[in-house]
């Protein structure tokens, strides 16, 4: 029972409920038919062929371009979040959130007319643009953006980019004379350089090598137009979709746990008939369902407070679902042979990008401190 668009306070979205449900059916069918965890398993071993092939299929379905003005524009966020969740149930390793909910909307927003071709190439899956960020997390203020791609070589703060190896270009948030801007750097002829950074999800992070980056052809996007507030809004859209992915990864883990609980026997009965197992799975299911509802709210209204709530609850869901799944799968799930551990690792890695839970709770506190009903 996927509620999809389920916001309560935000009451309108241009996406029709019937449209939403139709796209959801397509997404679910796509995952069921095309997208197995073999794809992510191969990718984690360094073989991205299957993942790239499916990326093209995702592009052909039009899902990367949903947040362009031609499609739903910003109003399509509930659809993008839903697709991200569905793809994540199979732990699809390609940067769907980053591309569809950050790169593309930003390029579209600050398109001075010169970017149509690039947007076309990205939305059709011809080109991949990685996003660069400080190693300790997405920028929280203009000061966290790179001084310029070149000069940041001297600040000493490490920057990283996921999927850099396979990217044709990298998008770097930079400080501009007025506000911020985006440096789009094409892959240098000699490659990206920088050290590989093995991470918990085998996502292929590399440290950004500013010397190599300086060799890449660079254009600056949004200079003069883009304020920190614009970038922050874009980051909140990205976080909403990242949270949706966390919900999807959690659901994937939960589904595996339920399936195993039905199948695996102990003391002559399915372990899923034990009350203690039922209680834990039911609780995980509830937290996951709750996370979907709050991500739904954020997708309709990606304000800081809704995004914070969605992030908090996505984290709660991830903790409950992926951990419970490991417990149900027990020793079997502890070997790298089984899928369940993929979700455990990958959900955590995604969740980390959402930011620290106490920052989110502080954001919610400020809302709670101001808002009051009446009486």
């Amino acid at each position, binding site marked *: 029972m996927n509620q999809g668009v389920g916001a309560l306070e935000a009451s309108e979205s241009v996406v029709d409920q019937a449209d939403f449900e139709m796209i959801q059916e397509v997404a679910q069918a796509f995952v069921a038919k095309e997208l197995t965890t073999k794809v992510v398993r191969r990718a984690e071993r360094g073989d991205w062929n299957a993942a790239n092939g499916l990326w093209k299929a995702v592009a052909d379905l039009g899902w990367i371009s949903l947040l362009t003005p031609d499609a739903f524009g910003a109003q399509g966020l509930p659809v993008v979040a839903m697709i991200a969740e569905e793809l994540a149930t199979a732990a699809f390793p390609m940067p769907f959130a980053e591309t569809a909910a950050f790169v593309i909307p930003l390029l579209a927003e600050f398109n001075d007319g010169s970017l149509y071709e690039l947007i076309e190439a990205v939305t059709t899956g011809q080109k991949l643009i990685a996003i660069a960020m400080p190693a300790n997390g997405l920028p929280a203020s203009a000061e966290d953006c790179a001084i310029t791609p070149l000069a940041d070589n001297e600040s000493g703060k490490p920057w990283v980019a996921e999927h850099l190896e396979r990217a044709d270009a990298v998008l770097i948030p930079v400080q501009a004379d007025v506000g911020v801007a985006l440096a789009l750097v094409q892959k240098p002829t000699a490659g990206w350089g920088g050290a590989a950074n093995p991470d918990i999800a085998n996502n292929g992070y590399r440290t950004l090598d500013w010397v190599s980056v300086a060799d890449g052809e660079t254009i600056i996007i949004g200079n003069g137009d883009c304020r920190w507030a614009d970038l922050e809004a874009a980051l909140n859209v990205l976080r909403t979709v990242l949270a949706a992915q966390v919900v999807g990864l959690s659901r994937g883990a939960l589904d595996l746990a*339920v399936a195993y609980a039905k199948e695996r026997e102990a003391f002559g009965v*399915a372990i899923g008939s034990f009350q203690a197992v039922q209680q834990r*799975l039911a609780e995980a299911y509830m937290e996951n369902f709750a996370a979907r509802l*709050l991500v739904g709210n954020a997708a309709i209204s990606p304000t800081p407070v809704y995004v914070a709530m969605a992030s908090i609850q996505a984290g709660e869901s991830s903790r409950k679902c992926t951990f419970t799944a490991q417990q149900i799968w027990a020793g079997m799930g502890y070997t790298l042979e089984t899928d369940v551990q993929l979700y455990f690792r990958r959900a955590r890695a995604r969740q980390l990008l959402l930011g620290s839970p106490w920052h989110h709770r502080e954001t919610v506190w400020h809302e709670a401190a101001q808002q009051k009903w009446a009486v």
Partner: protein
Amino acid sequence: MRIIPTEDEAAELRGRVLEFCEKTIPLTVRGLERQGTMSDGDSAAFFKALGQAGWIGRHWPEQYGGRSASHLETAIIDEALGYARAPLSAYLLSVKVFGNSLMLFGTDEQKSKYLPMITAGDAMFCQGFSEPTAGSDFGSLRTAAVRSGDKYVVNGHKIWTSSAEVATHMYLAARTDPKVVKHRGISLFVLDMNMPGVTVNSFPTLGGGVLNEVFLSDVHVPAENLLGEENRGFHQAMRSLDLERSCMDRVGAARLSLDRLVEYVKREGSDCGRGRLADVSMVQDKIGELRTKLQVARSFGYMIARNLDAGKGVSAEFSFGKLYVGLLTQALADATVDIVGPLAQFEYGSDLAIFDGLFPAVFRASPALTLAGGSSEIQRGIIATRGLGLPK
């Protein structure tokens, strides 16, 4: 997608309910000040005023005194009533449990008779399901209803009958076929609480209200008061319980507690006389956490209302509503006492009580929120077996 009502319409509706309560509660509610949940006890005067103002059963058809409103609208009203600390026990039982079942299983005559009495605020229902040996285990029901001519003769002992001290009617479950076992052979009735043979004893509760036991001794219930099919009462009763799970009244009550806590921590001197608790990071953090959980509870409530409005039927996921708001309220009540500190222990009647002792009252009542009407364990069992398809 368009959600009806819009947020502005919802706010307007909520505002009207709150305004009604602000005027009416001081005139109609006495002696319930120490109650932690307003679904613990009751006021016939308030119920009457609520009905006269047209707030009861708005989602029912107009012919029965309703306004054919959406379930979403009812959810908004319930939330506001909870926020206003309106006494709600019989309201919830009359509308959510009895009335909604009647809409499903009742005859036209029964609907025409009882629903207008409820919407007018004249008929207050209590629920006669639980018995000493049959709590969550409905199959152990012992109260017997023996057919005799055009009536049933009822004998039995009901417990945990909230609102029985003020109710005009009881929604009764009794065994009509003693030969079959467990869940079969149970029927549902409307019982007039003024009938000879009905005795109500009240017991004060931890929550500050009362719970009752009701003895039924040769009570003569007219056969026309049978609700639905004879001996099919178990399934009907389960459906009745399904319908009460959005619990938006509790979401509203939780929101009141949280709003009051926020108000308190912003007071100068709230931090042991030195500064504001609102400036303590851990207090902010905890309130941020609770506010998020409140949003979840609310989202569950709206999800349920929307699904009912869309005609999607009852699903296992409805259990989330009741379970989550119960857990939230417990977490909130406990955290509030921790945050406020020793002053949180002073009750209504103490000069030192904060908000007339709201915080200790909510704390005392908090355990009941996951035991009344199906414990958390049972809710989770329903989710596991019905929602996730795990073996029973």
